C-alpha cells in the first residue's frame, strides 16, 4: 500500500494541516472537515458526519472531539488517537512560538492588528459551520424551525446550551423532527 492510499496516513496529514488553519477552533473547521471526510475521501456519509458532530457537542470537553470521532470512523482506535494528536500538536507548537514572539515584541502594533483581523475570519468560518451542519441536519421544515428557535433562544437568553441539545434530541427521539 502506498503512503497516499493509507487512510491513517492521509487522516493524520490532513488534520495536521487543518489544525494550522482552524482559526476559531474546531467548530470553525467543521466545513473543511465535512469537505474532506464526506466529499473528498468518502470516509463517512453525510448522516454519520452529522452524528459525529452531535456526539462531539454533547460530550463534555473540547469541541475538537469531532476529530476523534472522524478518526475512529476511518481507522479505529489508532485513527482516533492519530487524528486527535494531529489536530492538537501542530497548533500547540505554533501557539507556543507565536506567544513567545508576542511576549518579546513589546509595544509593536501588529499583535493587536492581527487579533482584530482574525475576528471576522473566525466568525465567517463559524457561520459556514452553521450552514453546513444545518444542511446536514435539517431535512424537514420542522427540523429547520427547531434550528431557528434554538438559535433565537440561545442568542437572547442564558439558557444552558446543553439543555437545548437534549431537548433537540428528545424531539428527535419522539419522532417530531
Amino acid at each position, binding site marked *: 500500500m502506498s503512503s497516499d492510499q493509507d487512510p491513517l496516513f492521509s487522516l493524520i496529514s490532513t488534520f495536521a494541516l*487543518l489544525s494550522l*488553519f482552524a*482559526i476559531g477552533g474546531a*467548530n470553525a473547521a467543521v*466545513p*473543511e472537515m465535512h469537505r474532506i471526510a464526506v466529499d473528498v475521501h468518502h470516509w463517512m456519509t453525510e448522516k*454519520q458526519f*452529522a*452524528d459525529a*458532530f*452531535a*456526539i462531539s*457537542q*454533547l*460530550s463534555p*470537553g473540547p469541541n475538537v472531539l469531532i476529530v*476523534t*470521532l472522524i478518526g*475512529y*470512523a476511518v481507522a479505529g482506535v489508532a485513527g*482516533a488517537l492519530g487524528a*486527535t494528536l494531529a489536530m492538537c500538536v501542530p497548533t500547540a507548537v505554533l501557539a507556543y512560538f507565536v506567544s513567545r514572539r508576542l511576549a518579546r515584541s513589546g509595544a509593536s502594533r501588529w499583535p493587536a*492588528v492581527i487579533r*482584530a*483581523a*482574525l*475576528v*471576522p*475570519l473566525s*466568525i*465567517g*468560518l*463559524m*457561520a*459556514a*459551520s*452553521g*450552514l*453546513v*451542519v*444545518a444542511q446536514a441536519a435539517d*431535512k424537514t421544515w420542522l*427540523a429547520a424551525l*427547531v*434550528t431557528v428557535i*434554538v*438559535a*433565537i433562544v*440561545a*442568542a437572547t437568553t442564558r439558557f444552558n446550551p446543553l439543555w437545548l*441539545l437534549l*431537548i*433537540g*434530541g428528545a*424531539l*428527535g*427521539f419522539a*419522532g*417530531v*423532527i
Partner: protein
Amino acid sequence: MALVTLLAALYAHFGEVDALRRSLAGVTCAAAGLLISAVVRMMAPLVKKREILLLLVMAAVFVAVGWLRLPLAWVLLVAAPISIAISSAARRQAA
C-alpha cells in the same frame, strides 16, 4: 478522549438503531442553532462599531467556505492578508 473513543465504538455498534439515529438528528438540529447563535453574538461588536469592511470579509469567508465549499486553506490565504490590511489601515486612521 478515552470516553469519546468509547462513544465512537458504541456508535459503530448501535449507530443503525433507529431511535438513536432520530435522537442524534434532533441534537444536530439544535447544535446548528447553537452555532448560529454564537455567530450572532460574535458579530454584535462588529455591527455596533460599523466595521463594514470587516463584515464584508466575514460574509465573503462565509460564502466561500459554507456555500461554495472551497478549500479552507486557499480561502484563508486570500482572506487573511485582506483582513490584516483592513484592520491595519483602520488602526492607523484611529491613531
